[in-house]
């Protein structure tokens, strides 16, 4: 079965555009008639991931593949990488600088939320190389 592939370039520290990619995915899924619960999970997870790329990752690329039974998202940046994955996965832990927190981001809910809203969650990170999140949400 063929799939729908969507590609987005995420620019670094441009908060005015943050959320544009997840917004587009959301519109696409609505036009496909995907269930509201599935759309919500994809939208929340992808938005959090997109924001992470803007704040920490120095931008990157997002590839989304929609098939009949799932939505797969790969969010890849060439940022600094995550030093302590265990800590980063803890709710409330954040390394976001103060100026970012002042914008209302950096509550330390990003990664935990992404995990909560996805059915499959894989985090690959290497210091100085970058971080790749591979996520899957099954159609409900």
């Amino acid at each position, binding site marked *: *079965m*063929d*799939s*729908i592939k969507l590609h987005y370039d995420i620019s670094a520290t441009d908060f005015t555009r943050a*959320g544009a990619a*997840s*917004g587009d995915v*959301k519109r*696409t899924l*609505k*036009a*496909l*008639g*995907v269930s*509201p619960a599935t*759309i*919500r999970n994809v*939208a*929340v997870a992808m*938005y959090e991931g997109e924001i992470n790329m803007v704040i920490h990752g120095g931008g990157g690329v997002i590839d989304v593949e*929609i098939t*009949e039974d799932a939505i797969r998202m790969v969010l890849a940046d060439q940022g600094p990488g995550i030093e302590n994955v265990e800590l980063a996965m803890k709710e409330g832990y954040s390394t976001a600088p103060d100026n970012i927190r002042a914008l209302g981001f950096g509550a330390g809910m990003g990664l935990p939320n992404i995990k909560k809203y996805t059915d499959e969650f894989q985090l690959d990170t290497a210091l100085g190389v970058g971080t790749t999140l591979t996520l899957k949400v099954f*159609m409900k």
Partner: protein
Amino acid sequence: MENVFHSVRLDDEKCKGCTNCIKRCPTQAIRVRGKKAYIISDRCIDCGECIRVCPHNAKYAVSESFNELLKYSYRIALPAPSLYGQFNNLDNVDYVLNGLKKMGFDDVVEVSKGAEFISDATRKMIEAGVLKTPVISSACPAVLRLIRTRFPNLIGNILPLFTPLDFTAKLARERAMQETGLPSEKIGIFFITPCPAKRTEIKTPLCFEDQNIDGAIAIKDIYPVLVQTMDKLQPEELEPLNDSGIIGVGWASSGGEAAGLLKERYLAADGIENITKVLEELEDEKLNDLDFIELNCCTGGCVGGVLTVENPYVAKARIQRLRKFMPVSCNSLPKDFDLDELSWTKELLPSPAMKLADNVLKAMRLMTELKAIEASLPGLDCGICGAPSCHALADDIVRGYAERSDCVFSALRKASDGDEWLPAPFRERAAVHPFPEKGDGYAHDFAHTFLKHTDPKDENKEKGEPT
């Protein structure tokens, strides 16, 4: 396709087939076909944006004429609180209410009265914790339609209660039947409306099986007669009819309903673009720390309705002044009131209007085709094909409502090489009639100079401070 009733219509004679309205419609419900605007019925939410934006007055809203009143032997007017903001130097709402009676209505019941009961009920329900938060107000019928069309995920957050208008109508009918002994069908209840969406909701309610209101008369239609009647009223003639306070009348403008809940964790947004942004964020669960969200399609709230006479900000200022002389609230629900009596009687269903197909597999096939077509279009969103954007044209093509050749650029491209086929502004080479260069006093140059001197980043750089 759903067969939907609408109050927003097109005057074919006046329509020039320009592209102003197609660009502005929040649900992309308008196309140009046969040199005229065409409204796609199941997408239209009756918000009235196209009425506002049409330079030729070709879009209009249907409402009841005064002749409609003659069908009933007892006639009741339900004035929207936004009506009070339409008059200059008004310091007593009773002039408006008595004016309506003198015009020929047998009774007048303020919608702001019903609003105070609904404020009370909402407060109680939020406190009881029985609602999914953030609760979205259900008062604006265009918002209800926008949500079911574009944000079906959020239907569960909508306040599932009577609107102030519904409740006021119920009170008015009960009172009239009791006082006159007349059967219900002899009693005509008319809403004095600031907007076409309210009339659509009256004619085809989304959340109720039946409705209690017989018609809607536009504020702009009743205004000239009402002003004349009010002018002739003597102070000693005034019957005390005003029975609502600051909270009820506050519903006229954006933020009023939310303020009436006496809570702090609320948001109030107005204007179609702004509320769309709020709904997007709400859908992404970014606003979960709020209790209540008030959304009004019109800028400024109901005072900004397309059927009003006065500028929304002027109307709002006047209502603020009026409220100074009013008590906080005149109405509250009895302690033992069963809130179920105010519940919707019908489930609000999502609209399938934006879906490509009934099943995901078929929709995916169409989406793949749509993406390919969109990629082949110039991406200028010029509107000459009659669709608001290249994406919308691609969408129409896969649904079978348009053809590739509808794109004037696709047609021209075949005819010539290079970019000669493009209209002048879109060609690579220099424009035939260039704008003045820098230094010729052209506005762009002026703005450039101005920005350079005021950009705080630049100032910091000069001082050697980090940005």
